[in-house]
């Protein structure tokens, strides 16, 4: 209960917002009873400080702390899974980067004779033909295709050409099954660095005639089936797969050719090159 002995305390509590609603009503009623005390209440209310918004602490950033970087430690199967994922990503990136450009020089197969004995040249049926001509008649190249048909370049010490080989090429050159039509090679394309089925085999080939067409075809079909499964499992596009198949067939043809004339040629080697880069060498 508010009295004249304790009213000052209630006035201060009212200024400090410490009175309940009931106590505030009692104080209001008390002040109505003693109106001269209203002035005293107003004097106490003047002692309440106004809000000070003019002072600010500068350089708050200096007080801030940085959050520590989180390190996620992978253990057990998680680390293994992360390593596998990274390897797959790296492999995919490698494959994507290895995608040949449109102007990629098709691979060339060179059959070089290192120490072939000199043989008489039988040119009756197989006149020497310039490599470019050979190429011209047997090969078709589409410059813009990523993988051009494989070509075999048979090179011997003397530079006479082998018409028979040309014939073989002409007859046995496989056409890419589904790719765009292969354009004939002309001198211009050859000069631009296109393939090179330039067989410059030696004279004696006439005596060792190549396998008949049917046998070669059969052999091709047989190997084709075997290798197609391998190619199908490669992580490459269908176009590249076909090009590889064609290249493979070309290499096989050249190897078969060399084998057929192996009796008359000693120390023969077949070099498989991709552009100027040597892939592998077969020695006979």
């Amino acid at each position: 209960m508010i009295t004249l002995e304790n009213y000052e305390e209630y006035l201060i509590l009212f200024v400090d917002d410490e009175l309940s609603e009931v106590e505030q009503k009692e104080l209001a009623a008390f002040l109505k009873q003693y109106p001269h005390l209203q002035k005293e209440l107003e004097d106490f209310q003047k002692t309440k400080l106004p809000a000070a918004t003019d002072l600010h602490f500068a350089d708050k950033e200096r007080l801030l702390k940085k959050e520590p970087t989180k390190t996620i430690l992978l253990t057990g199967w998680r680390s293994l899974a992360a390593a596998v994922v990274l390897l797959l990503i790296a492999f995919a990136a490698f494959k994507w980067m290895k995608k040949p450009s449109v102007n990629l020089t098709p691979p060339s197969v060179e059959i070089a004779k290192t120490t072939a004995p000199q043989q008489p040249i039988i040119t009756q049926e197989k006149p020497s033909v310039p490599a470019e001509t050979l190429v011209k008649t047997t090969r078709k190249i589409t410059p813009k295709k990523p993988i051009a048909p494989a070509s075999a370049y048979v090179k011997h010490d003397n530079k006479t050409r082998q018409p028979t080989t040309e014939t073989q090429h002409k007859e046995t050159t496989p056409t890419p099954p589904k790719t765009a039509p292969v354009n004939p090679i002309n001198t211009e394309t050859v000069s631009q660095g296109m393939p090179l089925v330039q067989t410059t085999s030696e004279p004696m080939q006439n005596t060792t005639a190549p396998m008949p067409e049917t046998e070669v075809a059969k052999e091709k079909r047989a190997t084709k089936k075997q290798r197609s499964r391998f190619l199908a499992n490669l992580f490459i596009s269908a176009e590249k797969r076909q090009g590889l198949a064609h290249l493979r067939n070309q290499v096989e043809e050249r190897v078969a050719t060399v084998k057929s004339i192996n009796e008359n040629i000693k120390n023969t080697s077949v070099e498989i090159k991709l552009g100027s880069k040597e892939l592998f060498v077969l020695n006979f």
Partner: protein
Amino acid sequence: MDVKSYNICVQDWADALFRFVCKNTGNEEDARDIVQSSFETLWKKKEDVPMEKGKAFLFQVAYNQSIDLYRKKRKVHLTDTISSPETMKPTNPDLKRILERALKRLDEQARSLILLKDYEGYKYEEIAQITGLSDTQVKVYLHRARKTMKDYLVSVEKII
């Protein structure tokens, strides 16, 4: 509290803490040092202080450091008296300045209680936790501070 909560405390309470200490000590440089020290103390003990008690913790640390600074420097708070004719000119009745003078007339502890009450709106129980006083002590000290300031204001008004 974590680092993020600590940074929130800095953003929310640095200004208020600075105002409190500045009005308490009367010196901005001392106030800046006390504020920085208070936040450093909070940072060191952040694991033990929950987010909702961060403000009270900061003001408690700042209050104690203000009291320590006052005792170290032994400042004289009565910078002027009511009878000084030079400062009390009837033609210049500025209530804000009068209040500041009235505040300076209080001792360090009473001034801290008035600032915590009027600037931050703390209840008596909260002020008791910050200052380490009991609820009754807070009530009595605030009562005395209000009365002192009121008597000073009335005397100034009489002169004006």
